[in-house]
């Protein structure tokens, strides 16, 4: 894929409409790299002038801060802010709710002021503006999709409707889980849990959540977060239901319906 970096654009004297913040999972996690590519394809198809930082990007520091390592968080944040401000970045879109939350809510205090939107909101916007053409909605038409709220999108930032609007644009049958929106159950990965084993208990959180998703009878679990993706995929595997239900990111669903996949 030919993805422009911000340094290339700047060298050519151009400024992008928006910076696509890929995030660590989007850059390194094999499963989520597919989401990154799907979203990039959508942006290209919608003729959005965007750029990425590429090798200049580094972790926002979210897991460090949530684990309690404020030094490390602020080191990461400060470095990122210097780069972002150096390029004069104004608007950022990201597919990771953790990056979204940190960039949007925690960078301003450290000198980074940007308009930050999550890819679910951006997709909704592009659909509403007619910049995304869903040519092949047959794949999901009338099919049951359940949406798993990411804590960092939902409760943390009040984004509940955009992801649902995106799913509805597919003419799909949105089946809510028992616990959804403000009462949605965490996948178990937030607060840096992604990077350690769970404490002793009688069940894994992602299993509890996967069972709830399976109970909806949906064929697809839609997610909008790389950590939720991992946790739900592992949950489905542990329940041996890979044939019955697929875990997909919103960007993948849209890319499929655009015939881009």
């Amino acid at each position, binding site marked *: 894929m030919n993805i422009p970096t911000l340094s290339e654009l700047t060298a050519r004297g151009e400024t992008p409409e928006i910076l696509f913040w890929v995030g660590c999972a989007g850059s390194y996690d094999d499963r989520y790299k597919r989401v990154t590519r799907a979203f990039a394809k959508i942006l290209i198809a919608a003729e959005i002038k965007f750029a990425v930082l590429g090798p200049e990007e580094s*972790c926002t520091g979210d897991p*460090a801060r949530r684990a309690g390592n404020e030094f490390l968080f602020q080191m990461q944040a400060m470095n990122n802010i210097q780069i972002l401000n150096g390029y004069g970045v104004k608007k950022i879109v990201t597919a990771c709710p953790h990056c979204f939350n940190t960039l949007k809510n925690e960078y301003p205090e450290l000198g980074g002021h940007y308009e930050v939107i999550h890819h679910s909101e951006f997709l909704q916007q592009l659909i509403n503006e007619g910049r995304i053409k869903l040519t092949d909605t047959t794949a999901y038409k009338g099919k049951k999709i359940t949406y798993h709220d990411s804590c960092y999108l939902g409760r943390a930032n009040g984004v509940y409707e955009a992801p649902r609007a995106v799913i509805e644009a597919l003419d799909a049958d949105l089946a809510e889980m028992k616990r959804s929106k*403000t009462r949605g159950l965490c996948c178990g990965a937030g607060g840096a849990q992604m990077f350690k084993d769970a404490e002793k208990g009688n069940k894994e959180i992602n299993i509890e959540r996967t069972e709830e998703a399976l109970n909806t009878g949906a064929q697809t679990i839609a997610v909008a977060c790389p950590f939720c993706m991992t946790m739900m995929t592992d949950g489905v595997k542990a329940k041996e239901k890979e044939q019955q239900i697929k875990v997909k990111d919103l960007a993948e669903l849209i890319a499929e319906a655009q015939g881009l996949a």
Partner: protein
Amino acid sequence: MIQQILFLLTLLGFAIILRKRIVQISRTIRLGRDVKIDGPTSRRFRNMLLVAFGQKKMFSRFIPAFFHFLIYIGFLVINIEALEFIIDGLAGTHRIFAPYLGGFYTVLMNVFEFLAVAVLVACVVFLIRRNVLKLPRFWSAEMTAWPRLDANIILITEIVLMLAILKMNAADQILQHREPQHYPSTGKLMFSSILIPVLEGYSTSFLIFVERFAWWFHIIGILAFAVYITYSKHLHIFMAFPNTWFARLQPAGYISNMPVVTREVKSMLGLPIEEPGTNEPPGRFGAKDVNDLPWTSLMAAYACTECGRCTSECPANITGKKLSPRKIMMDTRDRLEEVGRNLQNGGNGLDDGKSLLDHYITREEINACTSCNACVEACPVLINPLEIILELRRYVVMEESGAPASWNAMFQNLETNFAPWKFSAADRFNWAKD
């Protein structure tokens, strides 16, 4: 006259005890760290009005919200009657407002009685929910004998107080017929008049005794209750108001900044420091004990209703982990009360070889949190248990380097590869290649 003096002494006595409790509680709250309270006052006012006064968040669970609302309204309105009690008690009058308000007094008293009965019913329902239906959230691990007893004491006291009102009114109505010169007419009172046949056979002097006894019982009950709640989860009836006022206004996902760290990081990176450090000593990084927490978190501990809504939504708790956000709040308060007692015996209260972390809250608990904000969202009085958990984590990581090994590995990856995993920074853009 003797009654008046006795009443005045009773009132003073309770006022002194209550004042002592209030001083002690506010002293422990003020041990907390200073925090900047920013954001528009109008939003704070709105939160207090909707959430504390209007009980908005309670209504996400309708049944308890409905019955709780009855008790709440009953409490607010019946306390207006306590005003008459106090004036009567001091002036030696009897139902001082009755002659002035006439028919309206009858209406008022009937409203009070209706609410008294409503409160009574609600308390019975709550007793059943707790003790017969045994709703799980009232029986989880941190609901040890005392918190369970506390809840029952409150409910039973309220029932007894409401019965006292009804009995007093019943006796009063009989006396109004027998000695109208001393007992101004209240008009017919719907609920207490049901009790009239039970009392009618007794002599006037006995009824006077019954009326007086119920009167004293009720007013002493209210005063004793006021002292009792300072030791109880019932303190939320007052603390919910300041707590909703001071509740954080930022999006729930935001974690508070540590300006000390900002200054240090900036100087390490050679960046200009806009606000040079004030001369305050840096103190601890994060929180080991209650005095390291923001005072708002300490106030919140006194506002906690121990309802367990937080815990029942907590993904860690649901899946059997030790973490319970309610316990975080209860532990914080228990530690505060302990420090308060130490303070009262001289000394600064904190050097007793104990601390909130480890002696109350274990590392296993704080390590289980996913920072999902379900507890914050669930709390009917806008308490944020997550803030305390994160401050404790900060202490463990920054003062003790005591994070779980896999977190230390993650930190190391971040330092060397700028990603939480062991991948080379140079490969970051590889996703675009294939």
